[in-house]
Structure formats: structure tokens, C-alpha cells
């Protein structure tokens, strides 16, 4: 009985996530990019173009699956599923907030943040295999770039996570949010319920986390793996129909997941005045999603050597310094 309940809950949550992240994500992306570029964006299907993504999904579902002749067929078919599943599984540890007398989250596991990082690292494998299995040099180059980029940026990501972990003394996301209760100044970006000067590592860790998360999710200005002017479309050049959509789903799920995690770790999760908690969580998450899209339509793409230098010579030493300074300040 227990297992049946768990399965139903998981299916419901993942369906909700797929709809919110992929469909709403694509719609927001198009609307916001239109707004930034003084265009209208999708307008015709449904009110204000709201049903445009639904129409697109129906179109993608009807399309033919093309497997290139010299592609490695089993690998080619498994790779998008791996990306989508890992991207959605990362949501298991995100606490949405109190509703119906309990905290809405799939599982509160005691290694929560480690689990999130582990799932983010599994996405690399899917992308690399997808790029290799397409048997196309552009796809392979995209896969290589993505692997180099994501492995480089996992380290500053983990180091930035260490700051809230050290402040809260737990890896459980729920525990971290509960430690930020009280006033707005107890959020870890403002130094948590400690001395005021802990706000300095808090803010820097937040910036490092957002930068690394943008790179980890392959978004502009760090979208080298799928740079369309150099690589056609990167690792998913050869994918058609729903398999292409699964790659997109995985990417949007990860981008939204990173925003949700930043809201949980640095911005106090569901805590906030007046409004109900779950609403606060979504406000914070969508504000960060808007920030990611804003950055996307503002900055040009970096070169590969600039990208790797930024991680290895900038963010990684800064991350180690942050961990050291936070530890020193907390003691």
C-alpha cells in the first residue's frame, strides 16, 4: 500500500514538473525574449499564446523518429531518456513549502544536496553518449564541450553549496530551509541567524552558485555545447521529434531545479511575510528563472578557453576561499 501511494505521488509530481518546467519554461522563454527584443512572442494559439507550447508538444509527438543510418541505435535511444530522468529526479529533494498540514516534498533524505549534485552529474553522461551515438562530428564536438564544461563547473557549484551547508550544519534541504526561519535577515544570502559579516560569504556564494548553475545547465552565455553558429545545434543535431523534446525537458528541468535550489539554499525557501509559504517559494523560484532568461538575452557567448579559465582560475579558487572564510567566521 505504502509503495503504491509513493508511486502515485511520484507520477503526479513528475507530470506536474514536466508540464511546469518544460511547457511553461518554453513559453516564458519565448515571451520574455520577445519582451526584451521588443517583439510580441507567441500570440495566436490560446489567450496570449498560452497554448502555443501544447501545440508544439503535439507536433513533436507526431513527428517521425529518425535514427541516422550509422548511429549506434541503442545508445542513441537511451541517451535522451537518461537526461530527462536525471533532470526530473533531481527535484526529489526540493521542498515546495507547507500545504495540507505538511511540507510538500517527495523525500527528505539526509544526503539531499549530495543527491542533487549526483543527479546533475548524471546528465553529462547522457549528453556525451547522445553526442557520440549520433555519429556526427558536430554532435560529438558538442558532447565533448559539454562534458568538459559540466565537469569543470561542478566543482565551484559544490563549493558554493558548502557555505549554506556549513551555516545550517545539515545536508537535508528541509533542514536548511527550517534553519532560515524568522525574519528576512535570517536568509543565508544575508548571513543567516549569525553575525552580520557572514553576509559577505553569503552573497559571494550566491553569485558563484548562479554562475556555475548557468554553466551547468548549458545556458547562454555558457551555451557552447549547442552553439548554433559553430556546431549546427551541438549534441542534439541528429535528434528529431520527442527525443529532441526529452533533451529539452531535461535541460529545462535542470535549469528550474537549479533556480529552486538557489531559492531554498540562499533565499529562505518557503519563508516570507504575509503570503502563504508555497507561494513565496514559487515567487523566488520564478524570479531566479527570470534572471536566467534575462542573462540569456543580454550577454554574448564566451569562448571555450575563456569559459574554462573562468572556472579553473576564477571560481574554483574563490570557492575554496569561501569555504575557508566561512569556516573561520563560524568558529
Amino acid at each position, binding site marked *: 500500500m505504502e509503495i503504491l501511494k509513493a508511486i502515485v505521488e511520484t507520477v503526479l509530481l513528475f507530470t506536474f514538473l514536466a508540464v511546469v518546467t518544460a511547457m511553461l519554461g518554453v513559453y516564458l522563454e519565448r515571451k520574455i525574449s520577445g519582451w526584451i527584443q521588443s517583439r510580441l512572442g507567441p500570440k495566436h494559439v490560446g489567450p496570449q499564446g498560452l497554448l502555443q507550447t501544447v501545440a508544439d508538444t503535439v507536433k513533436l509527438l507526431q513527428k517521425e523518429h529518425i535514427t541516422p543510418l550509422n548511429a549506434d541505435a541503442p545508445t542513441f535511444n537511451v541517451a535522451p531518456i537518461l537526461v530527462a530522468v536525471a533532470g526530473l529526479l533531481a527535484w526529489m529533494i526540493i521542498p515546495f513549502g507547507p500545504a495540507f498540514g505538511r511540507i510538500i516534498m517527495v523525500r527528505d533524505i539526509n*544526503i539531499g544536496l549530495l543527491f542533487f549534485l549526483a543527479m546533475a*552529474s548524471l546528465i553529462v553522461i547522457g549528453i*556525451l*553518449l547522445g553526442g557520440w551515438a549520433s555519429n556526427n562530428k558536430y554532435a560529438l564536438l558538442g558532447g565533448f564541450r559539454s562534458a568538459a564544461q559540466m*565537469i569543470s563547473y561542478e566543482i565551484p557549484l559544490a563549493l558554493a553549496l558548502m557555505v549554506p551547508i556549513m551555516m545550517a550544519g545539515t545536508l537535508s534541504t528541509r533542514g536548511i530551509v527550517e534553519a532560515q526561519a524568522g525574519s528576512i535577515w535570517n536568509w543565508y544570502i544575508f548571513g543567516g541567524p549569525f553575525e552580520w559579516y557572514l553576509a559577505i560569504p553569503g552573497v559571494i556564494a550566491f553569485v558563484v552558485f548562479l554562475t556555475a548553475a548557468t554553466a551547468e545547465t548549458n545556458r547562454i552565455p555558457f551555451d557552447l555545447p549547442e552553439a548554433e553558429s559553430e556546431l549546427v545545434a551541438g549534441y542534439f543535431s541528429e535528434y528529431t521529434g520527442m527525443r529532441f523534446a526529452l533533451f529539452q525537458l531535461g535541460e529545462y528541468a535542470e535549469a528550474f531545479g537549479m533556480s529552486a535550489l538557489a531559492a531554498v539554499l540562499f533565499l529562505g525557501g518557503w519563508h516570507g511575510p504575509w503570503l502563504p509559504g508555497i507561494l513565496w517559494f514559487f515567487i523566488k523560484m520564478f524570479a531566479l528563472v527570470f534572471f536566467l532568461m534575462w542573462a540569456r538575452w543580454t550577454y554574448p557567448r564566451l569562448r571555450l578557453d575563456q569559459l574554462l579559465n573562468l572556472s579553473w582560475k576564477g571560481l574554483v579558487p574563490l570557492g575554496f576561499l569561501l569555504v575557508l572564510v566561512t569556516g573561520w567566521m563560524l568558529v
Partner: protein
Amino acid sequence: MGELAAFIILSALTLIPAVVVVTSGNVVRAAMSLIPSFLGVTGLFVLLGAEFVAGIQILIYAGAIAVLILFVIMLTEGGTGLAIRQLNEQRLPGIVVAGALTAGFVVLVVRTAWPLAAGALPASNVTAIGTAFLTDFILAFEISSLVLLVSLVGALVIARKEL
């Protein structure tokens, strides 16, 4: 009952891809099969109550080592996926030696009376491991950090183009 079922599924998930790893003629397929094998071992760790080790196992083995191996295979001649002879002439001796050693291990494991102790694992894996690392096992911790640093520098120097 549930535990036994989980154990059997996870063992199969570990061992069947491992067979592909050592026998497949396509090196990329072999390296790919490492990933389900590592994930199966992760599942066994969770079953044994070692959540922290399980998380690190996915992060390091599946997320880093497997990607590194795939990367190197694709950068060298294996990446074409063409069938080259992958096994050497030692197949028969290999089967005999590995089979004999495994059989010896299994007999040893089954016949030994292990000094089992009942008891529960510490409630918080992470705290217990952190405390143990910085008190009882501080020397192991320091030495492995040093080895990590040296191998980082060493790998960079070895893989550099111009010496």
C-alpha cells in the same frame, strides 16, 4: 522479502553490465556498461545503510570516472566504434585464473563463521563520517588529500602537449 528482492535486482544490475564491460568487443559499449554497474553498487550501498558513500559513489564513479573514461576512449582510436580485436591470447588462462580465484573466494566466504554483531548504524551517516574523518582517521584523510593533490599535478604534467 522486499529486501531480498531489492538485493537480487541490484546484484543483477551490478553483475550483468559488468560481464558486458569485460567481454564486449566495442570499447564504448563496455565503458557505457560501467554506468549501470556503478549505479547497482550504489543501490547495494543504500541497502546497507551507507547513504553518504552511495552519494559519493554516484558523484565520483558515475559522474566523473565514467565520463573521464568515455572521454579518453572517444579521443583515442576506440571512439570510432569499429570492431578491432579487443581480447588478447590469454582468454583461456584468464578464465581459469579469474574463475579459480572467484571460486576460492566464494568457498572461503561461505565457510567462514563471521563474527556478526547486531546493532544499528549511527542515525546521521554524514555527521558520524565527518567526525570519524577528523578524529580517528585524520592521518588517512591527510594522506589521501596529499595523494589527490599530487595526482592532480601529475596528471596535468603527463597529459601536457609540450614538455
